[in-house]
């Protein structure tokens, strides 16, 4: 079991969350060339090691999180709210 320290709820089992996917992907502008969209939608670096990924605390606060996690050891290196404004408020408050 991976334990995820949700910035809103505290440390919880990962079974409360759903895995979103690769959090490093930046979608291109709507009118960007098709190649850029193909790259963003279908192509993955598939890192073995520390990757940035999204998780949804679906059975908790329902907030989306951005997590740096090692895909080999499952060790978590950082956790923050996915919404930048919320993440800033949380940082300022601590």
């Amino acid at each position: 079991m991976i334990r995820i320290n949700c910035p809103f709820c505290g440390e919880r089992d990962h079974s409360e969350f759903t895995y979103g996917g690769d959090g490093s992907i930046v979608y291109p502008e709507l009118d960007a060339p098709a190649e850029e969209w193909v790259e963003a939608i279908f192509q993955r670096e598939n890192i073995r090691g520390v990757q940035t990924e999204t998780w949804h605390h679906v059975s908790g606060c329902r907030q989306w999180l951005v997590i740096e996690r090692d895909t080999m050891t499952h060790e978590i290196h950082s956790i923050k709210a996915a919404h930048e404004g919320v993440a800033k408020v949380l940082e300022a408050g601590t």
Partner: protein
Amino acid sequence: MKTHRQGVFAVADVLPRRLLGHNTGNPLEMTRFSAWSVFRNGLSGQSGWTRQWRDPEPKKQYDIVIVGGGLHGLATAYYLAKNHGLKNIAILEKGWLGGGNAGRNTTIVRSNYFMPGNRQFYEHSLELWENLSHELNYNVMFSQRSHIALLHSPGAIDGAARRYNTMRLTGTPDAEIWDLEKLKQNVPHLNYGPDSRFPILGAAVQKRAGTARHDAVAWGYARAADALGVDIIQNCEVTSTSRSGNSITSLTTSRGEISAKKVGFAVAGNTSRLWQMAGFNTLPIESHKLQAFVSEPLKPLLDQVVVFGVGGAHFYISQSDKGGMVFGGDLDWYKSYAQRGNLPIVQDVAECAVSILPCLGRVRLLRHWSGVMDMSMDGSPFICKTPLDNLYLNAGWNYGGFKASPASGWYFADLIANDRPHETIANFNLDRFAQGVSLDERGAGPDPKLHG
């Protein structure tokens, strides 16, 4: 006292001897298995069996190097030698034969696919399975015991009828839809009760489908490939590649530098790592882990393969010839290269098991394990050329790698030998997403974890 075993398990007997380094440069003269040889060795204390394949030192140069000594790599090397008469072939395996996904699957073989390309490919694979023990002179214990996919709603029955009618019209005559009465006659101990969690209304059945003995498939292909001169090099991990112009010239391995005229990758969950060693960046693949389970051995309980998938539940089960209930369910739901599973999925799969077979409630779990799946963006594989002139890719097998092994090797060998894709695998390429012709059997969209 020495344990006596049947001939098909003789490989296990010679494994320790392989460590003695008894190497010759020449392929072994293959001892043919027959009823007579099993009988004769039974009388002589099983002392007459010889080693099944060599343990050669890697040569400096090969015409064709296949990276990955799993079922797909072994089958590829075998068909390169057998179908195309090619020589000077090596398989490089970072661990030992059968130690990766070859030994981590649930051994189900079927061809109930729907999409053009997948239909022909998996049916061809099933036909190869049907003759594999004879082809390899090795008992792969292929058991055509029927694959029974349970159906839980009228809509699911209609959908299955459409799929299985397509199968009947395209060369798979053994596809049937069973009503509840027929299903109850054949599998009486499923949960048909009015309070069942997943009420059963019928089943889609493929009668030629079944199971095989996974280790025997690896050993059988290895033995047959070795007899045709293929060098199988274990404990040989590729760590980097050298390129000249638009070709790979050599591979740096844990056992030295090996140059090759043609290189094929067949490394399942580690494809992206090797792809990056070859100088590329991204692939339409993510590595996820999938668990499988085996119970303590039981007396005969389940004659067929039974599967179901409805809502959030997904489950498949059969009984091995040793009596263990072999079963599995969903992925672990997050990307991972770790070959170990998590406990929430153990709970999910156990819940699925007792929901459909309540009689398993008191059965103890013997072992469970996890393999790293090369989950592709549409759930379909890649057997294709690459941007490099002499590099060929075999990957993206999702849940389907075991059943695909013979045809995967057959078509990958054909691709490498002829430097062009066979028409059956014309869409098994990396360009299909850009072209808008993805082979999404489940209609799940570009999210690899949903293609289980």
